[in-house]
């Protein structure tokens, strides 16, 4: 089974890493080794962190940083195996929405005692918020992104919206024209991770919420939610989306957009870098997520956490201190196309003067994060199932959402 296959390979890799500290004292007595598991954002991620580790080691010869690059899809499972096996790394990048489970199980170390006020002050405040639980900071925002709508300039100009759609009505009107011209109008994600998020865009834009104020019950089966889903279903039925939405994940939509076959898609700033590399001639613009009754977006952060049973916490934090200084952060954000999470980077001309990134940055004050709730992953799955049943025509929006919310309420 897949689980064993990956788990096994992982064990072997870890075994190699774990034996190093035992050998090391014979030839470098003062050395401490920090083991850092890094999620792979792109081909540049591994080399970037290796470079950082080398630079850090040059400045701090007594600390060595071991970088272990893991694919996003197997990251959580890798960490689960390590944690249950008692062989955790010292630091790891994680999806911030996993953090609550880490904290609840007591495997993550609060960082407050290491953080000086100056260190804390480096961050854009809103990005420290998702990594804080119960008033303590457990995760530092290594990456942040928000969502906005990319549109094909040529197609939308012909459709009468040269500056991009502002509202969902604009989207529908533009998609009709684009469809008549033989291309796909609005890209609607229908499978795999974040299929639920693609619907939250519209839900939030109609003023809906995912959970109630206490975080104890879901609130997505509200009129706003039904309205959002009815809108999507209507677009599917009228052929204003790509055909068979349940066979398109986020990457598939981005590919359609890059090939000039899709006129509108909502996604993260990293598509900018992909377009520059893969289809530099594509003329496109970026506008906020379409407005319903209000403006909003979805924001995501990834966090670096320190594990409680690390034996080299001081050295590990010293390395964190280093990679959250300006130059390493600028390089990281340029490589990966994420939003600045520290003030120094946000003020850097490269980011401050980029009109495309500015759309994302300007949306941040109205951004929603995924709810920090135990079991959110379960709820997201229920939502995705409900959405797919509606997209496939097996269920009506209101009924499907009702059912999903009942299932989800059992989890919360």
């Amino acid at each position, binding site marked *: 089974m897949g689980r064993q296959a990956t788990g096994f390979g992982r064990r072997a890799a870890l075994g190699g890493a774990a034996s190093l500290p035992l050998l090391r004292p014979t030839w470098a007595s003062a050395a401490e080794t920090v083991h850092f598991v890094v999620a792979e954002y792109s081909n540049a991620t591994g080399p970037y962190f290796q470079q950082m580790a080398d630079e850090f080691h040059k400045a701090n010869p007594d600390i060595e940083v071991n970088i272990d690059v893991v694919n996003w899809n197997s990251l959580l499972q890798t960490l689960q195996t390590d944690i249950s096996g008692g062989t955790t790394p010292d630091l790891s990048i994680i999806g911030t929405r996993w953090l609550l489970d880490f904290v609840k199980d007591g495997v993550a170390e609060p960082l407050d005692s290491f953080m000086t006020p100056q260190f804390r002050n480096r961050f854009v405040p809103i990005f420290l918020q998702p990594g804080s639980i119960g008033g303590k900071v457990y995760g530092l925002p290594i990456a942040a992104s928000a969502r906005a709508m990319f549109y094909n300039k040529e197609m939308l100009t012909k459709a009468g919206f040269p500056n991009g759609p502002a509202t969902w009505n604009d989207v529908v009107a533009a998609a009709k024209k684009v469809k008549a011209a033989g291309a796909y109008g609005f890209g609607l994600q*229908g499978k795999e991770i974040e299929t639920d998020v693609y619907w939250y865009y519209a839900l939030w834009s109609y003023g809906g919420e995912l959970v109630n104020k206490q975080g104890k019950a879901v609130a997505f089966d509200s009129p706003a939610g039904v309205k959002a889903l009815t809108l999507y279903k209507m677009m599917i039925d009228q052929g204003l989306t790509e*055909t068979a939405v349940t066979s398109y994940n986020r990457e598939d939509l981005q590919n359609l957009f890059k090939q000039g076959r899709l006129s509108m898609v909502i996604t993260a700033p990293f598509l900018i870098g992909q377009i520059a590399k893969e289809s530099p001639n594509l003329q496109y613009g970026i506008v906020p997520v379409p407005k319903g009754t209000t403006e909003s977006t979805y924001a995501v952060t990834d966090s670096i956490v320190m594990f409680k049973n690390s034996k080299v916490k001081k050295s590990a934090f010293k390395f964190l201190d280093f990679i959250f200084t300006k130059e390493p952060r600028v390089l990281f954000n340029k490589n990966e196309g994420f939003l600045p999470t520290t003030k120094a980077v946000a003020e850097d001309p490269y980011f401050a003067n980029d009109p495309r990134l500015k759309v994302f940055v300007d949306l941040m004050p109205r951004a929603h994060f995924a709810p920090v709730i135990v079991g959110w992953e379960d709820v997201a799955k229920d939502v995705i199932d409900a959405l797919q049943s509606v997209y496939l025509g097996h269920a009506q929006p209101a009924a499907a959402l009702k059912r999903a919310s009942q299932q989800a309420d059992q989890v919360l």
Partner: protein
Amino acid sequence: MVSAGRASEQVRPPALLDAWPSFRLLARQNLALLLILPSLLLAVAIILYPFFVIVRLSLSNVSPFGQLRGFVGWANYAGVLADPVFYGSLVRTLIWTATVVGGTVLISVPVALVLQQDFYGRGIARTIVMLPWALSLAMAAILWEWSFNADYGMINGILQGLRLISGPIHWMARADTAFPVEIGVGILVSIPFTATIFQGGLSSMPTDIYEAARIDGASAWQQFRYLTLPLLKPFIEIAMVLNVIYVFNSFPIIWVMTQGGPDNATHILVTYAYQLAFSLGRPGPAAAVSVLMLAIVLTFTVVYMRLQREEA
């Protein structure tokens, strides 16, 4: 037995004499036990320990990171048994196993028969049939996922090229097309192994009975029906059993191609268990599903062995 005829000469009770060889037998048995002890211990360690762990997990509230948060009795099982997705997956597992194994055997018999014939290029043909075996299941599944991609896939390309379809078919968008495609891929990757077993069986068959049959005027079909098939039967049986065990637990094809979706409509039990454990972070219920799967496979094995014994 010590013969009854000598009983009159015997002073010692015959029971002891009777017991004497069985002492030796016992000693020999002990030696045998001693010799297989290492592998027995290994088997216990490899099979029983994980079994113990999985049963314990299935009865506990387990955090996503495998920490036990307390004993919950049958709650995990009750939760799983109340989930409609479980029953859908169960039914689909049976369909999946029956169709993949059945289809594999049905296709592998003629494939093996053809490869048994002496023809020009047989070596190459055998290699081609064997090749998919060299590919890991996950890689094969990724290949086929691409082939069935609606926009760029080779399948739609070929069908459109032949003008059999006017627009692309979205194979993976709906379960009613995605699941049959997955079954097809499952059959395809199982053929090499199965055909190899059958080839082994065919090459061990005596040739003279066919000559005799031909002389008696048996047609090709009659030769197949009354000679080949009965002689191949033990090989078909073993291929069925092994394939049922492999296919029932086969994870990569479905996980890679649809991850059990859309709308949970292509899950089989093993992908459902995996999703519970690793996408949803619920190792407890996932362990419960695993134990239930083990019970199903055990039942199958017991029934099969019963049938075997009755036949014998």
